[in-house]
């Protein structure tokens, strides 16, 4: 894998708008953005309704994921190109999710919906219906998903990367600043975690920084790239963006996303928490 295998630019997408084997999927934090308009031919995945179990705090299971992709008209051999707002925050989460269930050919549109919109490229309101497929997912790849016990065992042993904003890391905010402040019982961060906000991996227009800039970013903040890494945030979406950077762009072999993240850790009894800036 390399950058060109996992990331495409807007010109590439425009050249493949009528390619049946390329499926554009919009995944937005603001799930209503798609209703207003979207890239021509794109289908929507709603990260809250489609990707999360509606009762337990967990992902949809393999059968549900298969049903979702079949219904959206996505086949196992299709090239899936994900895009969304906010630096591809939720699109990167969906990317990680597609990899969790073993989809082979999945890519992100560099810059996502924001760059597309800022470049004044075409967006259309028409809802897209693709013919249903039969989709077969793999069992979850636990090599890219971390659970709380593994995170606790990683303190002082592996790289822990807290990708939330400095205010959340220090304990001054419990949630990103564009959301009401709620969720975990306690603020702070996991001891030994480096605070490298996910957004530092992206330029203002949402495109990813160069590999050299990204390597420097993580090295300068104390991440030992020879060690395994676990990334976390508040609910596992922003850290999926950092997982994409470390695992897919920088090709680090052992990187996991802790999707329980701060809403779980900050509510657990008996785990260590630190306050203050890095």
């Amino acid at each position, binding site marked *: 894998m390399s950058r060109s295998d996992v990331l495409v630019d807007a010109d590439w997408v425009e050249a493949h708008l009528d390619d049946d084997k390329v499926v554009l999927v919009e995944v937005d934090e603001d799930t209503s953005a798609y209703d207003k308009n979207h890239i021509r031919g794109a289908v929507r995945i709603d990260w809250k309704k489609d990707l*999360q179990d509606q009762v337990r705090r967990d992902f949809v299971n393999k059968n549900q994921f298969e049903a979702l992709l079949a219904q959206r008209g996505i086949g196992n051999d299709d090239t899936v190109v994900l895009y969304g707002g*906010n630096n591809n925050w939720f699109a990167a989460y969906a990317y990680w999710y597609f990899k969790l269930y073993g989809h082979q050919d999945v890519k992100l549109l560099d810059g996502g919906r*924001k760059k597309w*919109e800022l470049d004044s490229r075409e967006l259309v309101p028409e809802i897209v219906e693709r013919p249903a497929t039969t989709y077969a997912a793999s069992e979850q790849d636990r090599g890219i998903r971390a659970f709380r016990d593994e995170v606790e065992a990683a303190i002082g042993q592996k790289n822990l990367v807290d990708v939330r904003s400095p205010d959340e890391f220090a304990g001054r905010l419990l949630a990103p*600043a564009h959301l009401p402040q709620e969720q975990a019982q306690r603020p702070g961060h996991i001891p030994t975690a480096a605070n490298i*906000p996910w957004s530092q991996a992206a330029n203002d227009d949402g495109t990813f920084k160069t590999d050299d800039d990204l390597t420097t970013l993580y090295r300068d903040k104390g991440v030992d790239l020879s060690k395994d890494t676990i990334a976390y945030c508040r609910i596992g979406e922003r850290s999926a963006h950092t997982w994409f950077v470390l695992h897919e762009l920088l090709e680090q072999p052992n990187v996991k996303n802790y999707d329980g993240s701060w809403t779980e850790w900050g509510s657990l009894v008996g785990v260590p928490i630190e306050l203050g800036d890095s």
Partner: protein
Amino acid sequence: MCGATRAGVSTDGVDLATEAVVQGVVTRDGEPVGTAYVRLLDASGEFTAEAPTSATGQFRFFARPGTWTLRTLAPGAEPVDEQVTAAIGMITELEIRVG
């Protein structure tokens, strides 16, 4: 889970007395810009959050008390930076004009 809403819409269910709200509207020649992105940067210039504007050009952040920079990106315009101060229980309102 995080119930992200397009900024500038309903505050139903939010206790505004405990929030430091920064909100406003992005305009061009007096008309709202529904395709802009407003980025909230902290006092050190670090990115904290981003909100796309609503169809009526509105955005909203739940910040913490202090000084912030709002960086607004809009199609065909240079980024515009505005300094704001947020306080708990206050709604700081502003209009951002892009070129």
